[in-house]
């Protein structure tokens, strides 16, 4: 373990987190109107001055701005992210609950998309110029060009509305009110959202894998493998694939992290109660603490993804030590 690496990684992550918090803090103070105004709108408007003073004292608004900032920063690190305007519970709690729901559709979609993208992308790149490759490539470019909200909408309309194959949204049937949540029902409701997320993310993985494979296929060691007398399939499987997958490690981890926010469109259209839906509601209600929490959670995910990539890469590529600049 390279000591400098750990330091660098920590420093970057720390800085990123701080900056995210700082941005939110500045936003808070820049808001037309006061923080408290939003919190206790009507009450504040009609509250007598001594109540206002008490509030200011309690929320530390009468302290110098720098002190407020550091308290705020410290709170962020401690996980004390305030209370949501809409839900009136700690932000972390709400996010925690909703995150689980997002992961229910996100994890299967990402795993499937990764596997499919790698497989199809590798095949496509290996057989560059073939009819299969051309068809796949065109298809993927087409799907990728469709905006995610439109894709989701179309899937909903076609499969749920016209074909009546799947529910129109939500995560359970209304009968759950009486009988409790049935995992199979949830799974049934999850199919279309997962399908949409899958379609959207597989194109990216496919494209990158294909490119990676194109570069790998032209390498000299592939010719060496052929010169040994190995058959094409073995060469693809043993030599080409492993090398082509190397750049994918960083990309996949980052995709995972990016999908958290990417799911906002899908969840909104399918009424899936996850983090994306939460973001939508928070935006509509201008729920600052909640939005900040979401931003911080996303940042944490990206940080985790970066660290994961840093750790995984040396495991698969013998040329790289932990901490090398990839």
């Amino acid at each position, binding site marked *: 373990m390279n000591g400098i690496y750990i330091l660098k990684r920590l420093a970057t992550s720390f800085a990123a987190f701080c900056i995210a918090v700082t941005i939110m803090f500045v936003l808070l103070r820049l808001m037309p109107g006061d923080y408290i105004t939003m919190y206790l709108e009507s009450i504040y408007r009609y509250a007598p001055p001594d109540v206002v003073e008490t509030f200011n004292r309690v929320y530390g608004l009468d302290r110098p701005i720098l002190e407020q900032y550091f308290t705020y920063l410290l709170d962020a690190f401690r996980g004390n992210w305030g209370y949501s305007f809409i839900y009136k519970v700690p932000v972390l709690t709400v996010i925690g609950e909703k995150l689980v729901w997002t992961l229910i559709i996100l994890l299967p979609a990402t795993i499937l998309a990764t596997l499919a993208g790698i497989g199809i992308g590798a095949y496509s790149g290996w057989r560059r110029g073939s009819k299969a490759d051309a068809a796949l490539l065109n298809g993927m470019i087409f799907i990728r060009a469709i905006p995610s909200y439109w894709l989701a909408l179309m899937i909903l309309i076609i499969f749920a509305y016209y074909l009546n194959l799947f529910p129109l949204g939500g995560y359970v049937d209304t009968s759950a009110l009486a009988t409790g949540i049935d995992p199979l029902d949830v799974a049934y409701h999850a199919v279309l959202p997962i399908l949409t997320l899958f379609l959207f993310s597989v194109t990216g993985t496919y494209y990158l894998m294909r490119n990676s494979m194109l570069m790998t296929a032209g390498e*000299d060691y592939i010719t060496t493998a052929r010169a040994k007398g190995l058959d094409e399939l073995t060469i693809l499987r043993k030599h080409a694939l492993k090398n082509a997958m190397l750049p994918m490690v960083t990309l996949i981890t980052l995709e995972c992290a990016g999908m958290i926010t990417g799911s906002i469109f899908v969840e909104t259209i399918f009424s899936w109660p996850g983090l994306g839906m939460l973001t939508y509601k928070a935006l509509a209600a201008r729920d600052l603490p909640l939005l900040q929490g979401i931003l911080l959670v996303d940042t944490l995910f990206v940080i985790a993804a970066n660290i994961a990539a840093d750790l995984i890469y040396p495991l698969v*590529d013998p040329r790289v030590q932990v901490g090398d600049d990839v």
Partner: protein
Amino acid sequence: MTDEALLEVRGLKVGFPTPDGLVRASDTVDLRVYPQETLGLIGETGSGKTVLGMAILRLLQPNTIIEGEIRYRGRDLLTLPEDDMRKVRGREIGIVLQNSGTSLNPVYTVGTQIAEAVTLHQGLNGPDAWQRAVELLDTVGIPDPVRMAGEYPHQFSGGMRERALIATALACRPTLLIADEPTKGLDAVTKRGIIDLFSEIDRDHRSVLFITHDIETVEDLATRVAVMYAGEIVEVGGAKEVLGDPAHPYTRGLLASLPERGMQPIPGSAPSLITPPPGCRFSPRCGRACGDCRSEHPGLVEVGPGHYARCMLYDRG
């Protein structure tokens, strides 16, 4: 030569379609490699010698245009079905590719890659194949072969990588070994080591097709020498004859350009392989060119016992 040729290339034409036209990397090449000899194939970069080596094992890109015959032990390799060709590769004919730096897969240990060839052709299982790989590394002169077999290519030096590649090519004891520029980019000492290694390999009663642009490496190793220019064989014969008293002006020019023989460069530059010069392809640069040279294309004629040259000086037919 009275023996039957091990490898006989007849009328080989290799062309690459490019947006600018067809690149004729080999234009009607005839070449023979006899058993237990080392044939040195010399020529400038772009003369087509690497293409020739790759063509023998059918390692060129699928859209390459190949015509002619490549007979190995009587069978035409160019008409073999792919499955049979795979049995030839590595097992009967081995090749050491150029660029040792990129010719080994970086994510597998060297031992694994050598063992792979052994497992494929000789059916040895894991530990036995590994054992053989270690032996091979020892044979090619890599110190501490047991440990080095478990190392990765990037941990090998340039010279050691070259040796490892040679080990891979020799793994299944092929009868013909093609070596493409094995000393390229190596310092003088390392180069010497590789040349010595090849002289040892020679003793193992196999044939070697030694492709290089470095004449000095060939002087010690080759029994016969062939000279390639602009996709054609312009001179071929015994090493002593060709290098001692070359018949073709190009060969003469090559020797004269060596540092210890005067370092006289050949004027002009290599011709285009898309539209080669009419007549003799060397005529634009030849100091002894005459009118016929520029209009007629010379054939390969005998200028001595077993010694042939493609030059209008000798082709008065």
